C-alpha cells in the first residue's frame, strides 16, 4: 500500500499540469479544474485499497480525475458554464481554430473526452479506454467519429 501511495504521489508531482489541463478542458475553468484534480487525488488516496493492479495506476487515476472534473462541471452554475463551452472558442487565435473548437464543443461527451485525453494527455487508445471505462475499440470509434466531424467542419470553413 505504501508503495502504491508513493507511486500515486510521484504521478501527481510528475503529471499534475497534464491532469489540470484535461480537467480545465472538461470544466472550462482552471480554478475548478485544479480543485477537481486535488479532490480526485484525495479520493484516489482514500480508495487506494480498491486499486487491483489489473492495469496501470495512471489509467485508474485518470478515470477518477475525469469523473471528478465532470462532477465539478455539473456542480458549477450554468452562468459560469462550461458544459457546452469547453474549450472556450474565443481563446482561439484564428477562425479555423475557432471553428474546430466550436465543433469540438458540439461533439458528444465521450468523443470530446477521448479527444482531450488523446491530445492533452497524449494517452494511447488503451489508456483512454481504461480512463473512460470503455473498450479500446469504442475509443477508436469515438476518435474516428470526432475526427470525421472535425474534418467536415474544417472543410466547410
Amino acid at each position: 500500500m505504501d508503495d502504491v501511495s508513493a507511486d500515486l504521489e510521484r504521478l501527481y508531482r510528475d503529471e499534475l499540469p497534464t491532469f489540470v489541463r484535461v480537467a480545465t478542458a472538461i470544466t472550462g475553468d482552471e480554478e475548478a479544474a485544479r480543485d477537481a484534480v486535488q479532490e480526485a487525488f484525495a479520493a484516489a488516496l482514500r480508495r487506494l485499497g480498491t486499486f487491483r493492479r489489473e492495469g496501470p495506476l495512471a489509467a485508474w487515476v485518470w478515470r477518477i480525475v475525469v469523473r471528478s472534473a465532470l462532477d465539478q462541471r455539473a456542480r458549477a452554475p450554468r452562468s459560469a458554464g462550461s458544459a457546452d463551452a469547453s474549450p472556450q472558442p474565443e481563446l482561439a487565435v484564428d477562425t479555423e481554430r475557432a471553428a474546430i473548437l466550436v465543433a469540438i464543443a458540439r461533439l458528444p461527451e465521450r468523443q470530446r473526452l477521448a479527444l482531450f485525453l488523446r491530445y492533452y494527455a497524449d494517452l494511447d487508445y488503451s489508456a483512454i479506454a481504461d480512463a473512460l471505462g470503455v473498450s479500446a475499440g469504442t475509443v477508436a470509434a469515438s476518435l474516428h467519429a470526432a475526427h470525421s466531424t472535425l474534418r467536415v467542419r474544417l472543410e466547410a470553413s
Partner: protein
Amino acid sequence: VNTFVPEVAAALDAAVPPVPVEARWEDVLRRAGIRRRRSRTRMFLAAAVLAVVAPALAAATLTIAKLAPGEPRVSSRVVDATLGVDATFSAQPRAGFSHVGSRRWIGFTRAFRWTLTFEDRPPQPVTARLLVRGSFVTLCRACPTDATGTIQLGRRVPLLLLERRGRLTLSVAGRGTASANIVVRR
C-alpha cells in the same frame, strides 16, 4: 493506430495552453484525511526522545519525584557536593501526554516546561545550559533561586548541564538508554 491530427492538436493547444501548476500534495493529504507518516527512524527517535528523555533526566542517581496520572512530570534532585549547592530540576511536558497504564506515559510533544530550584542562593552565579549534539542552549544565566523556562528537546539527544566552577552533568544517551554522569571540576 493512435490517430493524431495536427490541426486539432493546434486548436486544442490554443484553447487550453499548458500552464505551470504548483503541486500541493499536502492539500491532497488533508482532503483525504490523511496525516503524513514519518519514517520509522524518525518515529523511533521521536518515541525514544519523548518516552525516555524526560524520565531519564531523573533516572540514574536521581529520583522521580512525581509521576501522577494526567500530570507526567520528572523531577531531579541535583547536588553539587563540592560547592554545597542543592537544587531540584524538574521538567514537565507542555501538552499532548496521556497515560498508558498506571505508571507509564507516552508523549507527543517535545516541549517541556522546566524549573530549577535552588534550596539556597548559590554562592556564585550559576549558568544552566542544555547541551544538544555539542551545542549549548542556555536555560538561564545567573540563575535565580527559582528559575523556569521552556525547552524544546527536538529530535536530538539532550544533556542537561549545570555548570559553574564545579560541574554537574546529567546525560541521556540515545536509543532508549539513560545514564547519569556527575563530573565535578575545580
